[in-house]
């Protein structure tokens, strides 16, 4: 598959017929699209609010403030302007896959318009805030209508499949492309984290700015996916897997150098890292072996309490202080032992009942910890005052100087957790492609058939629990030192549900899925502080909606995608021969 020519452009294939409601609009698609793009552009330039909102990002009645905050990188006007111009250009030029690109852009515009318009309307006391006659504040309405027109115009003519690009360049050029791509990804992540700033009394718009930025980013990513570029980059990084992994690791380590490099975000990132590592461990149990574990956070807790007791904290029952790397290994081992203990009775139990048994074990752990069993957990007083990790004489809490650059305190913890997550990912990837991993997948798919094939399901299921628990214990040791206090409160049933939700939301059985899920579930509450009272309610609703509409998660495993959401061929187009899942290509 080393052709250097482009495949024939997609429009050679007739697009599938549109639904009957949209068929009436089919002849006018180009007009609709251009109109949509123009309206979006106009909306970007019009004022959006009829009054001054504390001089935030919504200046009153202003029109052409091109170079102030609204047009900063995270400014919604810039996003709308770019979307509008892009839409007009794509509507006129026959770019492959343009219907889907325009649809993605349209939805992005709608999202930005709705978020900002709603916010201004709510703050301003009603729709009058965005539609007043004096001072023409129609920006929100114009953008919304523009977005809707774009979506209609994009889909009215039917959707062609996402184009598949088979370009191949010489190795160094592809390496350069990968470096650039991951560099841009780093900047995107940094922008997502810092958009809107930190929510606080002085900065009440942070939630709205963040959501608007997310909407625009979503539209951008959707457009890139629709153009087939994301899939192509994926293929390129598959070709140079080792290099991609190294570059990804380096870019992750460079996050402290970007705008998100202050102590606050480093702490958030470290917490995400802990839960991402735990989620990857859970992915082994749930994603690979199919053993639904509702008490998994207990292993994180066991690791944390072990580390707390051996850390030399004043409140720890065992007065021994061990060096941190030893403690990490010890925590992993003890958690692993408990994992095996939990796994053993479950061998005869399947499905829902397994979930309940693991839930019961999780609850036993919480209750025992709450009652300070053996004096090891501190009960309601927890174990406070755990000293920070200290390696080579540097306490990880301090700010550090690297070659003249002053890094914020907490950067060292961040670097450590990135390395831990990388190690956990490595373990997971190796396991998944080993005999053991294949045995787990076989058990997940059909345990009886696996047994008939000679797989000893009992010991292998226990191994799944054991290894999963070890990874969680590993992360737990870090968690204890980072948060300096370990209490039973952090390990309740709800946390298990959240971890499971992270794995499912991200996509079961995939590493990027687990990390993405953990990130989303930890960044969102931080950024949307004003909704913190509704956080759990929205979380519950989100679980229901995800299982209803996208049970395979955001980054699905190939098996899961086929199992949970069989797509039609129209979505992905013909898969080129030589790819592993030709069976799937001919299915549906």
């Amino acid at each position, binding site marked *: 598959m080393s052709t250097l020519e482009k495949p024939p452009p997609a429009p050679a294939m007739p697009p599938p017929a549109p639904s009957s409601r949209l068929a009436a609009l089919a002849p006018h698609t180009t007009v609709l699209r251009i109109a949509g793009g123009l309206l979006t552009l106009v909306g970007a330039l019009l004022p959006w609010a009829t009054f001054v909102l504390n001089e935030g990002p919504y200046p009153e009645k202003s029109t052409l403030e091109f170079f102030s905050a609204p047009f900063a990188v995270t400014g919604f006007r810039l996003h709308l302007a770019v979307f509008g111009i892009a839409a007009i250009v794509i509507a006129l030029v026959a770019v492959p896959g343009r219907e889907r690109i325009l649809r993605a852009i349209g939805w992005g515009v709608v999202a930005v318009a709705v978020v900002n318009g709603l916010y201004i309307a709510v703050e301003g006391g009603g729709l009058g805030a965005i539609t007043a006659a004096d001072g023409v504040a129609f920006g929100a309405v114009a953008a919304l209508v523009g977005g809707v027109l774009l979506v209609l115009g994009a889909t009215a003519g039917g959707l062609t499949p996402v184009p598949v690009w088979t370009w191949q360049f010489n190795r160094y050029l592809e390496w350069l492309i990968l470096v650039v791509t991951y560099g841009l990804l780093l900047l995107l992540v940094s922008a997502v984290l810092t958009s809107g700033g930190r929510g606080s009394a002085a900065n009440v718009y942070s939630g709205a700015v963040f959501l608007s930025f997310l909407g625009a980013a979503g539209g951008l990513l959707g457009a890139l996916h629709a153009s087939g570029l994301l899939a192509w980059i994926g293929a390129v990084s598959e070709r140079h897997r080792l290099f991609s992994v190294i570059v990804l690791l380096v870019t992750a380590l460079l996050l402290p150098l970007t705008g998100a490099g202050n102590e606050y975000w480093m702490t958030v990132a470290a917490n995400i890292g802990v839960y991402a590592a735990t989620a990857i461990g859970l992915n082994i149990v749930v994603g690979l072996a199919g053993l*639904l574990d509702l008490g998994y956070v207990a292993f994180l807790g066991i690791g944390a309490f072990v580390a707390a007791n051996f850390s030399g904290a004043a409140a720890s029952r065992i007065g021994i202080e061990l060096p941190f790397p030893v403690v990490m290994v010890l925590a992993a081992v003890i958690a692993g032992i408990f994992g095996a203990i939990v796994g053993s*009775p*479950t061998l*005869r*139990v*399947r*499905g*829902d*009942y397994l*979930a*309940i*048994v693991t*839930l*019961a*074990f999780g*609850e*036993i752990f919480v*209750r*025992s910890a*709450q*009652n300070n069993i053996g004096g090891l957990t501190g009960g309601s007083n927890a174990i406070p005052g755990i000293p920070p990790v200290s390696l080579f004489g540097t306490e990880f809490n301090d700010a550090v100087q690297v070659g003249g650059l002053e890094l914020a305190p907490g950067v060292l913890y961040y670097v450590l957790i990135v390395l831990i997550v990388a190690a956990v990912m490595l373990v997971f990837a190796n396991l998944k492609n080993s005999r053991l991993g294949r045995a787990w997948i076989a058990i997940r798919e059909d*345990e009886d058939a696996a047994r008939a094939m000679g797989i000893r399901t009992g010991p292998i299921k226990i191994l799944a629990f054991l290894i999963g628990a070890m990874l969680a214990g590993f992360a737990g040791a870090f968690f204890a030192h980072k948060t300096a206090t370990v209490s039973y409160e952090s390990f309740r*049933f*709800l946390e298990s*549900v959240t971890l*499971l*939700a992270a794995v*499912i939301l991200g996509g079961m059985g995939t590493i990027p899925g687990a990390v993405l899920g953990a990130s989303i579930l930890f960044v969102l509450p931080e950024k949307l502080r004003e909704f913190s*009272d*509704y956080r*759990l*309610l929205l*979380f*519950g*609703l*989100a*679980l*229901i909606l*995800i*299982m*209803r509409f996208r*049970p395979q998660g955001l980054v699905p495993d190939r098996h899961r995608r086929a*199992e*949970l959401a069989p797509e039609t061929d129209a979505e992905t187009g013909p898969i080129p021969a030589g790819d592993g899942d030709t069976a799937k290509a001919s299915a549906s």
Partner: protein
Amino acid sequence: MLSTLFSQIVNGLVLGSLIGLIALGYTMVYGIIQLINFAHGEIFMVGAYGGLAMFTYLLPTFVQQQWYLALPLLLIAGAAVAVGVAVAMERFAYRPLRNAPRLAPLITALGVSVALQEAVRVFYPGATAAIPFPDIFVPGTWMIPIGDGVPIKYSGLLLVVVSLTLAIGLQLFIDRSRMGRAMRATSQDRDVARLMGIDPDRVIVLTFVLGGALAGVGGVLYGGYLNNINIDMGFQNGIFAFTAAVLGGIGSVRGAVVGGLTIGLIKSLGGQYLPGGSAYDYVWIFVVLIAVLVFRPQGFFGETERVRA
């Protein structure tokens, strides 16, 4: 000494009959659609809050003071709210996932449970802490004439009597009525039942209605017994009820009642006499659950078939 034992037995039986009421809902739903409805405990909780809302906001004062007027209205209100939530849950959360792999409805049930708990906490005034629940029956305690006299609140006695009556009524309904036969058929083999002219969707809705009504009634009575309710009561009692349903044999009405009484007794007697005291009473229940699922998954009255994956 002996009177402590007896009073703990009485406590256990009262709690056990409540757990049996909730367990009936779990066992019926699992029997019909093989789904552990994690949110069933929340239906119980919502029923209690529904009854309280009726009492606090809708009843005129003179009715509030006459228990024989207030009680039936509260029971109806609690059952109605619980049934409404249960039917909505079935219609919007579970029915679309009828043919999905087992993980999906389970996670959805978890989501519904969290969402319901939080919805009550956020939207019901004062629900962030425990709310007092009024006396809705004859106040006071009856001393059972054993030994020095074993106290049992009249509201507790009401709870036991109502639970047993409802359970017997449910068993008769399932055994003798047409709809009951339809339920049994649907739980055995849904497709053949459809061939026989039974609409499985209606049967499933009826199952949720019955389970919800029982849980709602239980919620109101429990509130009247303890004189306060809080949003956690659903989760805790739900786990106990599920354990009871499994212990008794999932799918069996008698099993749910017997299992409920057993669990109630374990909780109160275990909390009194086993090491660790009442702080560990939950732990003993979980140990029982694990033991049952590992050693005798079919429970007391279930059939000896392997637990299906």
